């Protein structure tokens, strides 16, 4: 099918793309010189500290800060009352659609009720962190404790404690008649699922449960706020989107966006968890009240208890197939929690659950459910991993029942160009079949795995690429170096992948572009770093910028040669006309010599999201049947990258996502006690994988060009977290014959499953 936005140039010989230059910001980061938010020191700076709820659900009866305010070295205290009145106020925030500002504010500082343990209630600014800490402990909050609920199915019950008395279930605009914790009910139907299942020779139906997990970035949330006497608010912060941060803060404080300047510092990981603001508006309020700059840095337990996580979930998935392996029908019922406030990841969960397969008949029901946990946030392909954990295990079981190789079964039913998804749209050119074939032909899949209690599993995953606006600008220096300012905050090396696309377009070396991330006053609007969009969308902007610069360079060359610019041809950075020839650098040097206009270029784009990235993972595991412990022996991640701009960083995304997925599979979870208090809010007890817990993670990059990008680039950041839990579960099943339907598949859980079977 012809693609509406076909931009792909079909270039075969790349000069820069596909090479592995050293990243431009690398030296700063290996010498300790890179400035992260917590490294920012301002004269006369105060330190802020949040007071957090010790209860999972309670009414705030009173807050008394008098003792804290009387302490020497304490300068200001703020509570929810310091926010302007935001009743019935909504703001349109890009992908998130309309955001309820009352709820966003109440997540930063609780109003009336606390809805989870760790919910921020008040904040104090003091001369140093120790005084702030002591002062926070002296702010007296009186609570009336309310019953609480943290498991998603419990929260859906009629008699569950209600988080929001006025919340009624929304079914695409239709409101239910009584209050509930169920914020949203979604439904997708394709064909006739009853008829479909009647055609099936084999049906597998299973239920799955997953615990909440955290993004686990190593850098805690941090901000420095300076509210100046001219009403300008300057924020240095760790954010995935400086413009999104600016908008949220401006809306929450009801001030114009241009009054806020956000300086994105280097950011120590985000994975979706650093999009929503937590500290920024609070630090701003403290700075306004105290008249001094205020720094706030979360402690690790605050990060766990007050930010993230991704939804805990329940899923029931049913698939039917004919004897030859043709899938005929699928049904899924998904309930994802969204934590304290509505707006979780159920939409993408529903859209992803069957996204890898061509199903003639299918039905998907999804529920977004409030419960007493921190408001859920995006985490790498949000909603897709839980769905794949369910669907990919059911596929695995079907393959076993039908005695068909699991790759062959997937190939037979794989989504491809022209496949209509359950949620409606038809796929453009996608690379799932190519990924499956790469898996089938991989050394890993072809190798023999022997040994007791060992097994091999495979699973697939899918995620979208979102679109959104991106801007960049650049100037050409006398020495031919191009200084690039772009608006995407750089979490994992995207400065370089953007610079490489500019270099490719200009026909110069990656090292001859000097990229930097601009603040919100120095670069055009750029949507956040997330949704696997930066290398794709900001890369597209860099390409357009390259064309703009090239056009201007042609004009300068034309001035030098006194010819018509349109008569100049450019090939690999060499400009030619009628026997004349100058390189990009030579023209750059001649611009000041000839008193020509400096070359300054710009580009802004707002591409639509349309491209899709598939991945397939293979794992070999060994199970210790006496302890239930799983060791990952070998791991391979395969993914369609469209075109790998910097293969090392594409591999890095695949490896990092796989590692997070393995952690999610085996040990990570929010462990709640009977009072719905998280008991493992530390890196020690939350148990993210260390390097001793993982093998090398092999990667195979598949390149099926994205039609919506001149170089065929697809975003790669998120898909890699989707397959691992199902891959590991399928491998465990192959090793010991036990089907694990609950995450994490931790030693006690697997041991219990094994002993129950025995």
């Amino acid at each position, binding site marked *: 099918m012809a693609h509406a936005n076909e931009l792909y140039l079909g270039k075969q010989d790349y000069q820069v793309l596909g090479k592995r230059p050293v990243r431009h910001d690398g030296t700063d980061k290996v010498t300790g010189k890179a400035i992260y938010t917590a490294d920012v020191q301002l004269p006369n700076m105060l330190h802020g500290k949040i007071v957090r709820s010790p209860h999972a659900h309670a009414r705030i009866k009173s807050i008394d800060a008098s003792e804290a305010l009387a302490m020497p070295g304490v300068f200001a205290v703020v509570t929810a009352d310091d926010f302007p009145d935001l009743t019935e106020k909504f703001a349109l925030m890009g992908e998130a659609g309309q955001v309820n500002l009352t709820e966003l504010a109440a997540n930063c500082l609780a109003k009336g009720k606390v809805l989870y343990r760790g919910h921020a209630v008040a904040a104090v600014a003091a001369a140093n962190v120790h005084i702030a800490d002591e002062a926070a402990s002296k702010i007296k909050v009186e609570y009336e404790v309310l019953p609480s609920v943290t498991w998603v199915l419990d929260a859906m019950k009629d008699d569950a404690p209600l988080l929001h008395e006025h919340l009624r279930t929304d079914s695409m605009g239709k409101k239910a008649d009584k209050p509930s914790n169920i914020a949203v009910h979604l439904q997708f139907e394709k064909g006739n699922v009853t008829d479909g299942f009647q055609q099936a020779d084999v049906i597998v139906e299973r239920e799955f449960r997953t615990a909440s997990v955290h993004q686990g970035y190593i850098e805690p949330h941090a901000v420095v706020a300076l509210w100046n006497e001219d009403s300008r608010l300057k924020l240095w912060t760790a954010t995935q989107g400086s413009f999104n941060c600016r908008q949220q803060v401006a809306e929450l404080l009801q001030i114009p966006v241009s009054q806020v300047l956000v300086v994105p510092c280097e950011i120590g990981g985000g994975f979706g968890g650093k999009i929503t603001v937590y500290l920024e508006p609070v630090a701003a309020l403290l700075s306004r009240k105290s008249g001094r700059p205020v720094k706030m840095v979360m402690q690790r337990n605050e990060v766990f208890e007050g930010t993230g996580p991704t939804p805990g979930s329940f899923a029931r998935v049913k698939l039917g197939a004919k004897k030859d392996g043709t899938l005929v029908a699928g049904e899924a019922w998904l309930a994802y929690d969204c934590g304290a406030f509505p707006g979780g990841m159920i939409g993408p969960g529903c859209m992803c659950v069957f996204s890898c397969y061509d199903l003639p008949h299918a039905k998907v029901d999804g529920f977004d459910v409030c419960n007493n946990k921190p408001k859920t946030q995006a985490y790498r392909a949000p909603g897709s991993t839980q769905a794949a954990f369910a669907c990919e295990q059911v596929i695995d079981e079907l393959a076993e029942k039908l005695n068909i190789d699991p790759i062959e079964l997937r190939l037979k039913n794989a989504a491809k160009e022209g496949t209509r998804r359950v949620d409606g749209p038809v796929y453009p050119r996608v690379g799932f079949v190519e990924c499956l074939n790469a898996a089938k032909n991989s050394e890993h899949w072809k190798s023999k795995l022997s040994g007791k209690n060992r097994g091999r599993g495979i699973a697939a995953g899918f995620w979208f690429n979102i679109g959104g606006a991106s801007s960049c600008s650049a100037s050409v220096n006398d020495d031919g170096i191009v200084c690039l300012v772009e608006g995407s905050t750089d979490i994992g090396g995207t400065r370089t992948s953007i610079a490489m696309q500019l270099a490719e377009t200009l026909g110069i070396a990656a090292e001859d572009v000097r990229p930097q991330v601009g603040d919100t006053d120095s670069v055009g609007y750029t949507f956040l770093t997330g949704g696997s969009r930066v290398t794709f969308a900001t890369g597209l902007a860099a390409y357009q910028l390259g064309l703009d610069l090239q056009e201007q360079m042609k004009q300068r060359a034309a001035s030098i040669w006194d010819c018509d610019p349109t008569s100049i041809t450019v090939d690999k950075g060499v400009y030619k006309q009628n026997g004349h020839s100058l390189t990009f650098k030579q023209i750059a040097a001649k611009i000041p010599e000839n008193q020509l206009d400096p070359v300054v270029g710009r580009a802004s784009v707002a591409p639509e999201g349309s491209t899709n990235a598939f991945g397939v993972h293979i794992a070999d595991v060994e199970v210790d049947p006496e302890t239930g412990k799983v060791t990952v022996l070998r791991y391979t991640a395969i993914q369609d990258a469209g075109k790998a701009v910097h293969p090392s960083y594409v591999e890095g995304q695949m490896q990092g996502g796989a590692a997070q997925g393995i952690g999610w599979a085996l040990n990570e979870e929010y462990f709640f006690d009977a009072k719905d208090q998280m008991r493992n809010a530390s890196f020690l*007890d939350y148990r993210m994988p260390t390097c001793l817990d993982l093998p090398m993670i092999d990667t195979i990059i598949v390149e099926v060009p994205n039609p919506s990008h001149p170089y065929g680039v697809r975003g790669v950041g998120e898909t890699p977290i989707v397959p691992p839990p199902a891959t590991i579960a399928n491998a465990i099943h192959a090793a010991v014959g036990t089907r694990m339907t609950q995450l994490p598949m931790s*030693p006690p859980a697997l041991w219990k499953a094994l002993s129950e079977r025995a």
Partner: protein
Amino acid sequence: MKSFDYAAPTSLAEASALLAHANGQARILAGGTDLLVQLREHLREADLVVDVKRIPELMELSFTPEQGLRLGASVPCYRIYEHAEVSAAYPALAEAARIVGGWQIQSRASVGGNLCNSSPAGDTIAPLIALGASCTVVGPEGTRQVAAEEFCVSPGKNVLRRGELLSTIVFPPPAKSGGSAYERFIPRNEMDIAVAAAGSWVELDPSGKTIKNARVAITAVAPTPRFAAEASQWLAGKPATEETFAQAGELAKKVASPITDMRGTQEFRVHLVGVLTKRTLAKAVERARG
């Protein structure tokens, strides 16, 4: 962290006096890997922190095959496992020292500190009990010896009285046909707190086929580390076989009374006691045979 005073005495007497006469709560600082976290998280409070690392006795590590090991209470873990002779003579101790936290923790954390922190899950405590170590406690009233298995009295609490500090842990000389092992179960492979753990020491008869003496200790499965007395006594005279080890594991389970928490269920932990006792005994016997 609440404000506190700091002192770094250079003698046992000075330290004891500081601890005895402190205004408010005095806390001993060795490696600080537990204490500083607890102070920061308000799990413990201190008005005075007494850094004992400048006291020579507490930093002593001396070993001879005849005299055994004298281990100063503040000697960091890495000095134990980097000491070839000590590692060979007391493998259970070296094994535990190598897995207390990660490397950066082992650079600071000490066996004495681990014992005085008196966590039910302290990694080095099972080896101390299995190896028959004795603790030298110095205080205003003089010096006393406390058997390792009697040191901890409840989670976070031990026999130290006001003004007292642990100075040295004394290990008997290694037996000729002796061997020891420590193993804990954790979900990750390092940087974790034991879900359950066992330390075993055995001495074989000259044939190498029969257990002459044995000591088994288990941790993380009761309010305090436990000496599995019945299992240990039962092992004496038994053939060194898998069946014996498994049966000793069953006996060791009798002294386990674990709780269910985020690290594991009661049922799982009791089960692990059996598995780990069996595994450590097998390893200890293998080492005893040389």
